[in-house]
């Protein structure tokens, strides 16, 4: 046995390598320019919640429907639907997920990652985990703050369970959308445009049409888990509500898990096999 055999370090496992990439990427992702956009996006609901609380503290109901003041818990439900589930989560998934590899390609730093003795898929996995940690640590506290600002303290006991569900659903949504758009980012040339078309074009259309097309969307399964009532804020929402066929919770969670694992695996496989040509 030669001395070199004793001293040669073993290559880290997939998870070990992913953890190293995560540690490297988390700080970079958190303090990137994209995070300013994320802060503005998740800060919006918190600002609305502050305004709501201030208006309510003056004894004026902040929101009325048919002359009847709307309770805080209902307003929180509307915020979860309208702001977080339909906009913030898909947007963050698109902007961050599609950029996982694209940023490294654009900055021409991909080479440094690929020359390391780690599986290429671990690079994507580590970056995906960094995205998930980064977005969860920004979005979920924002939901928590909005909840305690909007829902009266007297109703916390009765609505806490639905808050826990909301947090879990939003976390799951970030994970699934991130996986889907990580694959889109790894596979396609213009992933951001494709991602936006998917999230705000295809999903909205498929949910409004009757039939089986809705099953090819993430939103169909995610919205099935939400404990709040679907608001009818626009003609599209009304049409979507009309054709809404809600799958059971177990079915929804199962399909979301399939999407998550499936698209993540596809993304890792694509990164492993694709030949990246960096423009000079």
């Amino acid at each position, binding site marked *: 046995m030669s001395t070199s055999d004793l001293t040669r370090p073993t290559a880290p496992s997939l998870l070990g390598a992913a953890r190293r990439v995560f540690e490297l990427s988390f700080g970079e992702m958190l303090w990137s320019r994209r995070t300013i956009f994320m802060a503005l996006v998740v800060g919006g609901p918190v600002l609305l919640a502050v305004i709501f609380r201030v208006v309510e503290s003056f004894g004026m109901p902040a929101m009325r429907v048919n002359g*009847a003041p709307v309770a805080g818990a209902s307003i929180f439900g509307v915020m979860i639907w309208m702001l977080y589930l339909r906009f913030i989560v898909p947007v963050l998934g698109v902007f961050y997920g599609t950029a996982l590899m694209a940023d490294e390609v654009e900055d021409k730093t991909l080479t440094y990652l690929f020359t390391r003795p780690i599986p290429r898929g671990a690079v994507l996995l580590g970056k995906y985990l960094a995205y998930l940690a980064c977005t969860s640590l920004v979005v979920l506290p924002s939901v928590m703050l909005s909840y305690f600002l909007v829902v*009266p303290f*007297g109703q916390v006991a009765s609505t806490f*369970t639905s808050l826990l569900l909301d947090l879990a659903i939003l976390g799951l949504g970030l994970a699934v959308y991130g996986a889907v758009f990580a694959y889109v980012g790894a596979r396609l040339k213009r992933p951001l445009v494709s991602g936006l078309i998917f999230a705000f074009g295809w999903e909205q259309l498929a949910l409004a049409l009757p039939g089986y097309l809705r099953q090819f969307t993430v939103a169909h399964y995610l919205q099935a888990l939400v404990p709040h009532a679907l608001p009818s804020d626009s003609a599209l929402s009304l049409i979507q509500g009309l054709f809404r066929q809600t799958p059971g919770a177990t079915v929804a969670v199962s399909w979301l898990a399939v999407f998550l694992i499936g698209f993540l695996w596809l993304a890792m496989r694509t990164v492993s096999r694709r030949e990246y040509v960096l423009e000079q």
Partner: protein
Amino acid sequence: MTSKTRYFVLTAFGILALGLTTGLVASLAGGLPVALTRAAGPDDLSYVPSQAVAVAYANVQEVMASELRQRLKKLEPDTADRDDFETKTGVNIERDIDSVVAAMLTGAEGADHDSRPLVVARGRFDQVRIEGLAREHGGAIEEYQGVRVVSHSGDGHTMALGFIESGAVAVGSVAAVRGAIDAKRSGRNVLSNTELMRLVGDLDSSNAWVVGRFDAMAGKAGLPSELQSKVPALSWFSAAGHLNGGITGTFKAEAKDDEAATNLRDMLRGVMAMARLQAGDKPAMRAMVDSLQLGGEGKTVAVAFSVPAEMFDALEAMKSKSERRPADIR
């Protein structure tokens, strides 16, 4: 991980941990400590003694300004009594009263204040005029805990009115009015009844509501014992309504156990089915019956209803018909 990143992560986890802990404590304890919560319901609940078995509230201004009230005014036979009341007291019910809190109090059995109502009204009252009116009719004026109380005896009962604060009066028996003053000063009032206040909190957005103990009120209402034994074992009930063009409301009852609640729901389903049969081809009646929604789970039974404006159109038509008929006969 840089220190900046570390602080961010700790802050985010801190917000999540604090929120989850607060929510968990609230869930397990049935609510947050009173100091952290703004008490549900109107501030005048602080005048209702803790032994109240039922509390009601009405936002008189909103009710009077509603479209429904304007329609019902046309159906009133005459306003002579109301005009007489205004002339004597200077109080116009539609204009001068903003809100009313009413309570049914219990006291020692056989005592004069046993099961007496208490009404706390907020608005604009001419204290001098009311005191003058009381003196004219042989009433007495005293001061209790710094509050002017006007009392008058007649038909074996003594009624009292206390000017409890600027813009608010308490009306009831002498003991009830004194009890209201004591409840506010001592803090021993209905706000400490967590069960009742929990129900009030759910109704806070309505412009008229009532919450009470069904079993206590059924006994005081003097229902025959045979009927009381047949009524499902209910503990709390609440009813709330919102008046605008019509009336929308909910009625909730809490049964003693799940079985009683299931039986009550079954009974209500039967009543609703019979109502649908009776509604037949009357559109307004049909609309109201169709609006009935039965719900609730566990020990709670809830019925939501909506009386549409068309019902009141039908009432107006009936009144017009009855007024025309004597002329036709002539």
